[in-house]
């Protein structure tokens, strides 16, 4: 017998356990991709149950279905255009009132709704009572109780889905908006229905209400319609701000009239969550605790990852050596060994960092602390033209820019996110430290520590100035308003965090990996050809390139050798040191290299200072470029990041070198 197909969509507010339910439903049969044309993650999965094939689509978590954010537009367009058989709204039982606001909007969309009452345990622990029968009756919608974290109620839910699909009976719902608005709604409905060519998937009443609320997305949808002018005429005659307020009022009023009948809330209790917040957002202790926890996360992401990174490094060089020695002819050995395997190694070496970082971010998010982090740091970030949510990605940047840019995903506002991505590369990552150690150690002796510290500060200053500059020019506008739920603290589920970690780690390997691999091979080719030259020597293409750019680098105090080293640094910034070693014939011996650099009259303390600043700021390494492309989804911004970086680096190094020369150093 052929299995019957059912398509269900999961919706719900953020932090209601939607992802946990999705994981409980679909297990490991998941597919992660992007929604067409945007960088918002799309998750779908399948479950076979009692002779049915059920496709589950996890829609982005939203508080509403207005056009406030990309997430909301995606969710509502999916429901209207793809017409899932059943829309499941996951509702947080301990926060019913606000959750029902989304329910009112789903009802207006005319979809078949099934409500999943999740986290009943928390509500009950607090002493709330919810009357399921009454709720089903008042909402005219089936309600199922689950505790997704303990996989309770999953089978009942699937039974109900099948039952609902079988009866195919539509439960109608409507909210009245009062005489004045209803008149306008009718008027617009009538005009819209005159247009025979309209997209019939969109319910007329829903469109009319949205238009009256000032929904620009819906307005654009009817822009080409012959009745557009008649609709705008009505819309222009009303005070849309007032209508917007009135419509929201009426929705909450509708909820308030039924809410007391289906739920009795316990008297105010001091919950665990309140207790934790009292300490974690305490006036005096809040910031020190935050910094300590961030330091802990940092230790785990970078210190705990080191042995795993070393293992990958060792295996890559072992494989590379093995291949080089066993392949013929030698150019092929070099291509496979140094180029391809070196490239794969360059991709894989970040995997431990990224896996751990995403695991921790998921723990922070699942526990509810990520929202508090933004809450605590927002004032400071707002002062430099950024949003509180940008703090954690920037902090992570000190370890490695690659996961830091990926962490910017938690920022919803496109502009805030873009600025964060563009300025993270100026935060001095761990790979730049060896460069500072070499040059500061060689030229500044006892002051080396101060010089290195100054480099870190320089990076932060440039990042802050860039944020302000970008805000004033290409990414105009103020940071998004801070309107954020502080969800109750919860124990995060291991499974959700592990899945989150795996999905994102894998995405990195797939998407950024290709770009990194290509970058590494291109640089290998530049260093190896024309055939027969010593790898990366003056006669190779990279050497010629070094000579070619020398005129541009002279004003900064760099000769062709340094230029070549900087080109190699694009693979990963610490490679600057290794290639200086090759160019100065010192190999891996850092003391010998230090002595030879010291002896080179072309490099003085001033040159080295200029070089350190340039290394800090110039074009991010290929791995970072790879994730910038992946995360912005745009070559334009990726190119911008590269050019902007080089320009800033050039100017800064120019000021240091020429300024220093003028002062007689």
């Amino acid at each position: 017998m052929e299995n019957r197909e059912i398509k269900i969509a999961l919706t719900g507010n953020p932090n209601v356990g939607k992802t946990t339910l999705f994981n409980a439903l679909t297990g490991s049969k998941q597919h992660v991709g992007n929604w067409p044309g945007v960088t918002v993650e799309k998750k779908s999965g399948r479950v076979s149950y009692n002779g049915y094939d059920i496709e589950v689509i996890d829609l982005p978590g939203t508080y509403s279905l207005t056009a406030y954010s990309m997430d909301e537009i995606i969710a509502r367009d999916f429901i209207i255009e793809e017409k899932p058989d059943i829309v499941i709204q996951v509702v947080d039982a301990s926060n019913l009132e606000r959750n029902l606001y989304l329910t009112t909007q789903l009802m207006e969309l005319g979809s078949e709704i099934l409500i999943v009452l999740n986290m009943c345990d928390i509500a009950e622990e607090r002493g709330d009572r919810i009357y399921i029968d009454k709720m089903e009756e008042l909402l005219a919608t089936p309600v199922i109780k689950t505790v997704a974290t303990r996989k309770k109620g999953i089978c009942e839910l699937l039974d109900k889905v099948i039952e609902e699909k079988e009866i195919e009976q539509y439960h109608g719902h409507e909210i009245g908006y009062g005489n004045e608005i209803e008149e306008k709604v009718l008027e617009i409905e009538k005009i819209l229905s005159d247009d025979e060519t309209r997209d019939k998937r969109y319910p007329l009443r829903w469109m009319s209400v949205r238009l009256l609320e000032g929904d620009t997305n819906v307005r654009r949808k009817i822009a080409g319609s012959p009745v557009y002018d008649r609709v705008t005429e009505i819309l222009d005659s009303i005070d849309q701000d007032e209508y917007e307020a009135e419509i929201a009022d009426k929705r909450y009023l509708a909820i308030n009239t039924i809410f007391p009948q289906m739920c009795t809330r316990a008297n105010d209790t001091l919950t665990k969550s309140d207790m934790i917040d009292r300490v974690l957002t305490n006036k005096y202790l809040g910031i020190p605790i935050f910094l300590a926890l961030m330091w802990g996360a940092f230790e785990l992401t970078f210190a705990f990852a080191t042995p795993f990174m070393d293992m990958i490094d060792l295996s890559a060089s072992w494989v590379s050596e093995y291949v080089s020695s066993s392949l013929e002819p030698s150019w092929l050995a070099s291509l496979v060994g140094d180029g391809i395997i070196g490239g794969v190694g360059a991709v894989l070496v970040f995997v431990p960092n990224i896996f751990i970082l995403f695991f921790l971010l998921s723990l922070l998010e699942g526990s509810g602390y990520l929202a508090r982090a933004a809450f605590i740091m927002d004032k400071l970030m707002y002062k430099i033209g950024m949003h509180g949510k940008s703090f954690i990605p920037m902090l992570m940047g000190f370890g490695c820019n690659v996961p830091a840019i990926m962490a910017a995903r938690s920022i919803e506002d496109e502009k805030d996110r873009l600025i964060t991505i563009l300025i993270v590369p100026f935060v001095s990552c761990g790979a730049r430290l060896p460069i500072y150690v070499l040059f500061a150690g060689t030229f500044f002796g006892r002051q080396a520590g101060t010089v290195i510290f100054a480099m870190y500060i320089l990076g932060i200053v440039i990042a802050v100035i860039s944020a302000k500059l970008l805000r004033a020019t290409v990414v105009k506008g103020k940071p998004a308003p801070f309107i954020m739920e502080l969800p109750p603290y919860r124990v995060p589920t291991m499974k959700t965090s592990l899945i989150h970690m795996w999905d994102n780690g894998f995405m990195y390997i797939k998407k950024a990996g290709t770009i990194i691999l290509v970058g590494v091979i291109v640089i290998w080719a530049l260093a190896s050809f024309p055939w027969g030259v010593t790898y990366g020597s003056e006669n190779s293409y990279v050497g010629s390139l070094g000579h070619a750019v020398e005129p541009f680098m002279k004003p900064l105090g760099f000769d062709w050798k340094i230029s070549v080293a900087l080109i190699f640094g694009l693979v990963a910034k610490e490679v600057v040191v290794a290639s200086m070693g090759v160019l100065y014939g010192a190999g891996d011996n850092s003391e010998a290299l230090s002595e030879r650099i010291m002896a080179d009259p072309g490099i003085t303390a001033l040159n080295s200072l200029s070089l350190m600043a340039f290394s800090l700021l110039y074009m991010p390494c290929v791995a970072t470029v790879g994730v910038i492309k992946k995360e912005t989804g745009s070559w334009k911004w990726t190119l911008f990041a590269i050019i902007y970086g080089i320009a800033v680096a050039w100017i800064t190094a120019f000021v240091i070198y020429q300024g220093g020369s003028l002062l007689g150093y």
Partner: protein
Amino acid sequence: MTGNDFPDIHETTLDTLKPGEKAKITKVRVKGSARRKLFDMGMVAGSEIELVRNAPLGDPMDYRIKGYHLSIRKEEARQIFIHKL
């Protein structure tokens, strides 16, 4: 921006609320995209709201509304009119 359509001596703005004080929202005068977002989060006229605490640096604020915690900046709170309870 004086809320003179409601001549009410108790009327003030949300940012003047002290920790532990409760109020009823009378009017939301925030403009732009933040306006809709506030409505979606339950900041509508008639809702009861309580200031739980300020962030450690003084801003934003942590309010309790409709049984959950919502955080907004003073900048927006200044444009939300309330009637202290």
